[in-house]
């Protein structure tokens, strides 16, 4: 068993290394110097307090969307709908931020709560349809993503502005950023949302590993028939899992709304926060600590990528290739396992 546990940690690390290796090969193939390329990437992600602040800022919503998807995965559900739940959460948080004038100690939690409720509502539709009618959650969540995209765009034009493409700024009392913190990190867009994301990471870990509810959810995800035999309600657990998953993704949207931007604008396409959350959850092996680490890796990579073209001439999309390859190697971990086992045998 210990062997297995070690492998579970070793495989993501090896996958990350292999992903970078493929990136280096691609750079070599197109006549770039991979050392220069990765130096630029590192510089972009951690080169100064400003870059570190940006990397953390980019990590915050990824932690939450990653947690959302990991939570659903553990319950045997595939929530592709995190993308749409991010949209409605973002909208709800900004709406609360604009419409009310409250002391910050109430305003911020209220905005986050509104986002969680909006995200949960959005996830409730696929959840209830799956539980009562057996409708595949993947299709419904894909549809809900598009509905979220168009609905929030419509509401921004009509409710949050007069036909404009951007909402008003939220009241200062709802803003998660403080000038002091931003100044400390070289005037980057960092905000206190990192505390929010850590709180929810701890919540997910505790809920899944230490409570009866979490145990039931995992049991349903692992084997719905066995769970049903031992008297658990599969239907209730499916709905509950989707509600919490959607709520988490909604809060991820709130981090953009009342943290990074302070407003919402109409989107022509998806933010990819939800889809990247899938990658985060997978690399993090669907555990809360793993998700936090994976989100930080991807957040830093995405910020670092922006420095690659100016510093080394390598197109920023190289990072997308690296991330995709990391996910691919995680998926094909059987291959890595085989290789490790073979090495072990030769040692003996």
């Amino acid at each position: 068993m210990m062997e297995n546990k070690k492998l579970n940690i070793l495989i993501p690390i090896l996958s990350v290394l292999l992903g970078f290796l493929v990136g280096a090969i691609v750079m070599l193939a197109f006549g770039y110097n991979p050392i220069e390329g990765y130096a630029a990437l590192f510089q972009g992600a951690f080169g100064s307090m400003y870059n570190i602040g940006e990397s953390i800022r980019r990590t915050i919503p990824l932690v939450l969307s990653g947690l959302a998807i990991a939570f659903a995965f553990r319950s045997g559900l595939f929530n592709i709908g995190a993308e749409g739940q991010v949209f409605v959460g973002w909208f709800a948080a900004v709406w609360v931020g604009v419409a009310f004038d409250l002391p910050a100690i109430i305003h911020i939690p209220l905005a986050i709560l509104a986002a969680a409720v909006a995200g949960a509502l959005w996830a409730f539709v696929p959840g209830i349809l799956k539980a009562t009618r057996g409708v595949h959650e993947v299709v419904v969540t894909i549809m809900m993503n598009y509905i979220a995209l168009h609905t929030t765009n419509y509401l921004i034009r009509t409710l949050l502005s007069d036909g404009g493409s951007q909402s008003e700024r939220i009241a200062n009392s709802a803003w998660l950023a403080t000038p002091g913190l931003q100044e400390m990190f070289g005037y980057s867009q960092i905000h206190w949302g990192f505390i929010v994301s850590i709180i929810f990471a701890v919540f997910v870990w505790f809920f899944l590993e230490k409570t009866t509810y979490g145990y039931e959810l995992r049991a349903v995800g692992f084997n719905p028939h066995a769970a049903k035999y031992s008297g658990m309600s599969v239907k209730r657990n499916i709905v509950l899992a989707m509600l919490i998953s959607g709520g988490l993704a909604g809060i991820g949207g709130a981090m953009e709304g009342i943290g990074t931007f302070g407003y919402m604008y109409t989107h022509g396409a998806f933010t990819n926060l939800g889809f990247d959350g899938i990658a985060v959850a997978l690399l993090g092996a669907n555990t809360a600590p793993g998700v936090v680490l994976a989100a930080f890796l991807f957040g830093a990579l995405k910020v670092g990528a922006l420095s690659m073209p100016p510093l080394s001439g390598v197109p920023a999309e190289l990072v997308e290739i690296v991330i995709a390859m990391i996910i691919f190697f995680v998926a094909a971990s059987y291959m890595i396992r085989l290789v490790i086992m073979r090495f072990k045998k030769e040692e003996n």
Partner: protein
Amino acid sequence: MQFIDQFIAMMPMVLFYSAPLIFTALGGVFSERSGVVNIGLEGLMVIGAFSGIVFNIFMADTLGAFTPWLSLLVGAVASGIFSLMHAVAAVSFRANQVVSGVAINMLAVGLGVFLTREIFGRGQTDSITEPFYTTSVPVLSDIPILGEMFFDGTYYTTFIAIIFAVAGWYVLYKTSFGLRLRAVGEHPMAADTNGINVTKMRYIAVILSGVLAGLGGATYALTISLSFAGSTISGQGFMALAAVIFGKWHPLGALGAAFFFGFAQSLSVVGANFDFLANVPGFYLTIAPYVLTILALAGLIGRAEAPKANGDPYIKGSR
């Protein structure tokens, strides 16, 4: 009467929007019927669109009017090769197939835009000079009403897509190859016992899905977008996946679902022309296809049963 006229006028648009979805959904049917979940349809479409466009731009001068057809072929082949990655991961390395599909999607966009930057020096290709043009089918377009609806001002690619769907149905349900492919997706161990090579069948199915999704992506690029950028394929692959499930993993069902989505999409574009829809805000028409799909799944279609072994890697000797 006016309503009917407008409806007839809308049909070419429906056909035009449906074609990429039909090809891609058909690919999804083949892959999933063999027991391999293919979330990567979106990425496979991206590869098809990218290679089709690049080939078209560089070969237009030498090949002339023949270019779009060969571009289509190039898109299909490139995507077929790319899908090998999914096959290797999902079949040989027993990967979680959803995860591998997600990786395919990310890699396709990353690679497509990376190469676009390398070739064109920016994130978007030039526009192609040899796209597909709308045509009127001789003789058939002279048929009253029906001719106008289906054979006037449409693309040949749409007809090819429909023929492919019917052929797909024939292959899956009327040939021994199709029976084997379905057997592998329902009960791989039983199939293996009967001497069917599960690994080989699944490889073939995944590569077929790559070829078909590549056709879909190239069709979209050569008829609708006419250039390639990272956002060219934005969700069509997921729509096709929805069509697979909506169509209950059946080629003709997927064809019908793709038409339904095409119809709904066209409605959101031209819906305002209809008298009885004129007062409905555009927003409601925009979300109509998605809401209708959910309603249909919830009420009319009910339980859609996936192939039994869908998503499970087959491990010889395990029970």
